[in-house]
């Protein structure tokens, strides 16, 4: 048996253990059940404010006064409407505090009410959450009352039964219902019965307390789950914004390089080209000066190619100017094996879709070159439902699996950031098919 004091231990777990009665949980649960009395006393007065007009309405109705009955009923309901949400906050706070007697695990706290009066009123009376709390308050006051009453009744009965051997005498029979006895052996039997009932009562009050806490937990966590969902949506949106700002930053860098360094470099290489001609004309091709200028010219050309490849990796101009199909077409042109590009797109997708599709396809093609051993590949682009679908096939040896830090994982992350998805089929022996879907609208 685990020690009774593990941090996540609670009355509900203890209830299912054999030595439950010997531990501290029955006493804690009892304290919880008894403290219901305090809750009741504290809230009896505000509840009366609602209860009295409704009671009055029932009385009027029994006298046939329909009009005054409905008036009182309306008054009761209106008071209930005003009082219940107000009542819910302290009920919830008290119950949340008391719940630790039964389950020390902290319960999610209800959110704070706004301090601006207008917002406070709206929050209090016009939100689903507050009305759920109000519903809880109403339900729990009834439920806890019922539990307390039942437990008290059963406990009293058990007490009376246990006392039977002491109370019984020939003149003073003990009766249970219609059955009476004056025999002391029968009384002893009753005492045993009472003892059994007492054990049952201990279980009952613990179960009752657990039930009440479970209800409280549900009430608070329904909210918690929704808040988590809201936060997740916000995190998703911020990830999308992050990727988009990343993309626009790349475009900006590409533009700056294109307008600045690239243009300057082409002009420089051109100038060196002219100088090369001049030097050859003036001094002949074999002159050391001609060699020097020629070498500088060639170097500038190499640098130009490298810068162009670098800029293309940042963000290819053809993607912005002409579109996704042309950009992928150009990308495949430099690969060491033939790639067929087919497209059924008749109009250009949105810029962020094109950028995502381009870089994901680029990564997929890099993977094919590096790992697949393919001799042929194909890329097809199209629309399906509201999605842009890009499918890449290769005739390589297959067996591709996404690992952390692998290209496939990067692609999946990149696609997920814009609400897209990645499908992969790569049986050993191939072929490998990668299918990317990107929703056109968010």
């Amino acid at each position: 048996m685990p020690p009774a004091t593990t941090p996540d231990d609670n009355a509900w777990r203890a209830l299912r253990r054999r030595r439950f009665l010997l531990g501290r949980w029955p006493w804690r649960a009892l304290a919880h059940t008894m403290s219901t009395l305090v809750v009741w006393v504290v809230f009896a007065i505000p509840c009366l404010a609602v209860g009295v007009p409704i009671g009055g309405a029932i009385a009027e109705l029994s006298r046939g006064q329909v009009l005054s009955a409905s008036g009182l009923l309306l008054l009761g309901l209106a008071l209930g409407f005003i009082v219940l949400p107000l009542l819910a906050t302290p009920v919830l706070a008290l119950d949340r505090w008391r719940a630790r007697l039964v389950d020390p695990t902290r319960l999610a706290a209800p959110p704070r009410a706004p301090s601006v009066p207008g917002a406070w009123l709206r929050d209090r009376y016009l939100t689903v959450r507050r009305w759920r709390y109000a519903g809880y308050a109403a339900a729990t006051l009834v439920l806890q009352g019922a539990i307390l009453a039942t437990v008290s009744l059963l406990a009293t009965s058990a007490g009376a039964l246990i006392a039977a051997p002491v109370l019984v005498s020939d003149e003073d029979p003990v009766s249970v219902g219609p059955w009476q006895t004056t025999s002391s052996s029968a009384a002893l039997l009753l005492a045993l019965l009472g003892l059994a009932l007492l054990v049952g009562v201990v279980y009952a009050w613990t179960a009752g307390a657990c039930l009440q806490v479970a209800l409280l937990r549900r009430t608070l966590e329904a909210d918690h789950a929704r808040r988590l969902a809201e936060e997740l949506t916000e995190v998703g949106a911020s990830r999308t914004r992050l990727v988009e700002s990343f993309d626009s930053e790349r475009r900006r860098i590409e533009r700056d390089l294109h307008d600045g360094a690239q243009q300057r470099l082409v002009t420089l290489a051109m100038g060196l080209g002219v100088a090369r001609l001049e030097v050859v004309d003036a001094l002949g091709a074999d002159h050391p000066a001609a060699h020097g200028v020629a070498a500088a010219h060639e170097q500038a050309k190499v640098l130009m190619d490298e810068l162009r490849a670098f800029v293309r990796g940042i963000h290819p101009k053809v993607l912005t100017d002409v579109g996704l199909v042309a950009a992928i077409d150009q990308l495949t042109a430099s690969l060491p094996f033939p790639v067929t590009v087919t497209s059924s797109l008749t109009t250009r997708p949105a810029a962020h879709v094109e950028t995502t599709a381009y870089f994901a396809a680029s990564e997929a093609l890099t993977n094919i070159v590096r790992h697949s051993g393919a001799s042929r590949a194909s890329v097809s682009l199209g629309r399906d439902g509201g999605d842009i679908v890009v499918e890449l096939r290769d005739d390589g040896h297959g067996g591709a699996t996404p690992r952390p830090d692998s290209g496939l994982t990067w692609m999946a992350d990149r696609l997920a950031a814009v609400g897209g998805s990645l499908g992969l089929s790569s049986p050993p022996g191939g072929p490998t098919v990668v299918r990317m879907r990107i929703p056109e609208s968010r």
Partner: protein
Amino acid sequence: MVLAEDGTLLREGLVGLLERLGFEVVSAVGDAEALIAAVDEHDPDLVVTDIRMPPGYSDEGLRAACRLRTRRALPVVALSQYVERSYAEDLLDSAGGRAVGYLLKDRVVDVAEFGQALRTVVGGGTVVDPEVVRQLMRRSDPLDRLTERERGVLALLAEGHSNLAIAERLVVTEAAVNKHVGNILSKLDLPPSADSNRRVLAVLTWLRRHD
């Protein structure tokens, strides 16, 4: 000739280069509208234009060139930032593909070759960037019928070089090139032709059809 290029630095560099190559630059402009106006004003023998220009920075230069060529086969060399075959095709489809060139912008640094390409276009010839030809050729399965050497000759042919220029590049005799060209044309079912430019266009058309 008229030059259109939006980058100031590069435009000035190009003017210097073109004049060094013996061309008279009568007007150097920075956008497509100014290009059309300059052509109307000067009626030049050659236009060299950047494809990507203000205001939209997509294919303004190309559109202007094609528009100019609807009136007459004005020799035009269009410079492109990247290989886009649709651009090359638009140019080849204008004025019967004569007197037109499509080159990557980077080619201007190979000064002598660039000058040669401009002269070919002024003379009514067709010049296509080697990169475009390379892309067209690597996609055409029927080219498997050609030998390695024939494919090399075909590439140079498609770029717009004459038999003599091809012979010089490959360091073979012109007669050998003539033989290769004959073989290529018959293997591709193209009519033999003495006019080298008609031959270039036939080859380009064939490559585009089999792309």
